[in-house]
């Protein structure tokens, strides 16, 4: 392995919790801190620790429609964790380091485009905020996000659903057996970005073998074809065999191997709640793998590969699934015509539940069918909080037609039945509320 310069942005938020006994509490990264400090990783010549910056409301409004506004859905801690992800990106894009890991909390990958409150412990989507920050500051980039959290990253999927320049790949425990219950292979991206959302649900009890098989035979080949400018690992750690709220059998060594092979430019911590038995070792493994160090001596005290071996049924199931998804990916370009026919707009209606805050949202999203960009988007959303909003979103790299239609849609939107009407134009960094 070659040593790489690795940046570490560590923010354990030792004074912040969703509630005292919530998995997302003060103690979560305590033992990770202990292990990272005891291993002396921050003393290594090629590992650099950076203090996180603070994300701004502007950074949030570039990607989210927060109802009624960003200030109302976040705490200071969210500004730091999103800011930490941005700092990681800054250090990589300015070439101060070769790669960086934002070991921060709270997480973000369940936060969708419209935010009425917290869901799946997430308020704002820290990777998505980072991605649009990168594009705003460093120019448009093709970005691949590989989400290795055990839960389907439904928030990230929602945000990048219509974006053909972001390949969002989520590998997670089958949604029939775990929150949030989504993330099936047929969730494949919006009509303008078919194939740029990829879901790889794995059966419960999948171990290192299954994860690495999907990585080698599906994720890495897709990345080779997509040719991203940047690879981001949404580094949830709850696939670990000791995680209390999931059912997978991934190990610290498996996580490290995955990161060595994936070689992400930026990794951002997501979930992972086996705070004593998994996180200290998984995080040390990831940092060492990113820094190009020999991680073969990183192992959990109770690690016994035989005990967590996956069954041959699971192996066969994953092999089949991987080849099916790869077929789907291969044929992504030919599916659009069949799907949209001669429609000018595509519409989807959804109910979204915010489990953390107990909010129900009814959402109707309409995208303009477009061959030149991600497509102008309008959203009509009504939440059990009583808020009803309308939002017009002009995507990044938008074509003139979509921008014009977007501007018109916002102009003509009546505020009457809505509490707020929003306009978001990524390329021009415009965010207006009326």
């Amino acid at each position: 392995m070659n040593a790489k310069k690795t940046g570490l942005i560590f923010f354990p938020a030792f004074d912040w919790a969703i509630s005292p006994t919530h998995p997302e509490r003060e103690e979560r990264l305590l033992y990770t801190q202990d292990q990272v400090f005891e291993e002396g990783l921050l003393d290594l010549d090629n590992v650099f620790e950076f203090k996180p910056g603070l994300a701004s409301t502007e950074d949030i409004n570039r990607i989210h429609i927060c109802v009624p506004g960003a200030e109302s859905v976040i705490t200071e801690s969210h500004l730091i964790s999103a800011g930490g992800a941005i700092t990681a990106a800054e250090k990589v894009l300015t070439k101060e380091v070769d790669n960086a890991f934002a070991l921060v909390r709270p997480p973000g990958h369940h936060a969708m485009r419209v935010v009425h409150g917290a869901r799946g412990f997430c308020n704002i989507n820290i990777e998505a905020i980072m991605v649009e920050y990168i594009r705003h500051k460093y120019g448009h980039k093709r970005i691949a996000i590989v989400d290795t959290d055990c839960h389907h990253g439904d928030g990230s999927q929602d945000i990048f659903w219509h974006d053909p320049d972001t390949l969002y790949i989520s590998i997670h425990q089958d949604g029939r057996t775990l929150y949030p219950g989504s993330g099936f292979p047929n969730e494949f991206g919006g009509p303008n970005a078919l194939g740029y959302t990829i879901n790889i649900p794995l059966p419960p009890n999948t171990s290192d073998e299954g994860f690495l098989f999907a990585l080698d035979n599906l994720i890495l080949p897709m990345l080779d074809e997509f040719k991203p400018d940047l690879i981001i690992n949404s580094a949830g750690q709850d696939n670990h065999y000791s995680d209390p709220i999931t059912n997978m059998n991934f190990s610290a060594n498996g996580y490290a191997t995955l990161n060595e092979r994936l070689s992400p430019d930026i990794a951002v911590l997501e979930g992972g709640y086996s705070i004593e038995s998994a996180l200290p070792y998984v995080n040390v493994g990831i940092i060492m793998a990113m820094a190009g160090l020999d991680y073969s001596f990183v192992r959990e005290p109770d690690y016994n590969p035989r005990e967590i071996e996956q069954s041959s049924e699971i192996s066969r199931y994953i092999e089949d699934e991987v080849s099916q998804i790869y077929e789907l990916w291969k044929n992504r370009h030919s599916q659009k015509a069949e799907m949209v026919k001669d429609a000018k707009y595509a519409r989807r209606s959804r109910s979204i539940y915010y489990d953390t805050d107990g909010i129900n949202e009814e959402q109707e999203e309409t995208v303009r069918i477009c061959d030149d960009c991600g497509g102008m988007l309008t959203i009509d959303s009504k939440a059990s909080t009583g808020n009803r909003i309308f939002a017009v979103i002009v995507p990044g790299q938008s074509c003139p037609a979509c921008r014009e239609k977007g501007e018109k849609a916002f102009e003509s939107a009546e505020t009457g039945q809505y509490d707020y009407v929003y306009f978001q134009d990524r390329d021009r960094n415009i965010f207006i509320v009326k």
Partner: protein
Amino acid sequence: MILGIDVGGTHTDAVLLDHYEVKKKAKVLTNRENLLDSLLEVTEEILSDEGPEILDRVVLSTTMSTNAIVQDKISKVGMILASGPGLPPSMLRINDDTHFVSGYVNHRGVEVAGIDHDEISKIAGNLREKGIEHVGIVGKFSTRDPHIETDIGDSIHDKFKHISLGHRMSGNLNFPRRIATTYLNAAVWDTYNSFIDSIKEFVGRFKTDFPIYILKADGGTFEIGQSVKCPVQTILSGPAASIMGILSLTNFKEDAIALDIGGTTTDIAIFAGGIPLLEPLGVTIKGHKTLIRGLRTRSIGIGGDSRVDYENGELKIGPERIGPAAAFGGPSPTPTDAMIVLGLTDIGEKEKAEKAIAGIAKSMNVSLHDAAETIFHSACETITSSVRDMIDEINNAPVYTVHEMFEGKKIEPTLLYVVGGPANPMAPRLGDMLGCTTHIPENAEVANAIGASLARTTTELTVLADTEKGTLTIVEEGIQSEIPREFEREDALKICMDKLRERAIKMGAKEDDLEIEITEDQSFNMVRGYYTAGKNIRIKAQVKPGLISNFQKGETR
């Protein structure tokens, strides 16, 4: 009276303080081959008019351990590492005699694997065969529970002259630094102990009794008898003496910068509210990052005698010194020569300085004065930009709580203290550039010896309480005891204060000097399966570096 002696690389200085006034100063050349000779010489000189019975306290800052390490005059050490999972052994091996053994505890101090006595006795035999008398034993997370280290130590202690245990070096986490610290402690143990034996023998002849203290890297002292247990703490006491010297010659409670400008290098230190800042983890010596508490200093390669060169349109000052300033017959122009040309100082031979700077002026195609001004300004610029970098680094140190992110204190120095040869000519410009009021302390030439004389005894202590396990650990003292489930943060705080007090007094502190500060104060609810299973409490406290009591800063004359 107090006798303070600073054994420096070049000179050995001594001061005799009578009611905090400098009664007498002495300076001799340091005999690097035999530091004791220099000590005796300077002591005899300073006590030429007095008898030893006038001494109430003697403090010594010595380069004994530092030199031993830097010059590789150290004992062979056998290292036994219980390394557990994590970094590969290849990254932990510190010398040819490093051995890895089974047995380790996890981050909570729970034993995961036990030690193998056969394995250890084989290693001990192997080390003995090689004639090794000094052993260091270090376990991963031994600061959480030291029993792996003590068990290994107990099983082989009769086979070796001395054994250094990792957890006694520091209560802080960092396994590679604990290895380096323990290794160095074992490696200098013999040299340091025989040095101290000779001092004791010499002092014994005085037939009078007074306490002798040794200065540590953190600017604090410990009693000589305590120092032999942990000699590695005495390394790098030189820079600490200089910082404590500035503290003793001045009187301030603000954020401040201290510069010691020498011939070759300039040392920078920062004070927060009048207290010198410590290195976050420990000092570095000869490439070894350690857990030794030390004052935070940065040394840069620029001084009064730095070589000045103009090449390819670029002015270069330092980092090398090839001789004294041209004004003193040196071979090349230096910042000192520039200061002479500018009339900022009238030392040396002005013509020689002018001639040297004229060469640079010609290459730069500017007047003599402008060349001197450019050199002088550029030297000041190099120093001030390093100062600013150091302050930025301190102010941008990572923090781990939301509170500190938003409310964290920033260092904003308003005072600048300058000592060293070029202090007078350089201080005003440096002060302007840094936006600070400038002070040049008097008696600065013996500041180090004064600093050592007046430094108080410092120490720190770590209390860890895990109420789910039901254990309390004070690793620096090797204490482990049982605690009840209802043990609280307040209980830990109280124990920490009491034990720190005891420890400081054992190390030689006076009751009046115990200026204690809590440096870490955390209590986490440990939740298992949605129920609170216990508390994880972490308290750390220190006796701050500072001056002995009854002494007001700035009183020394």
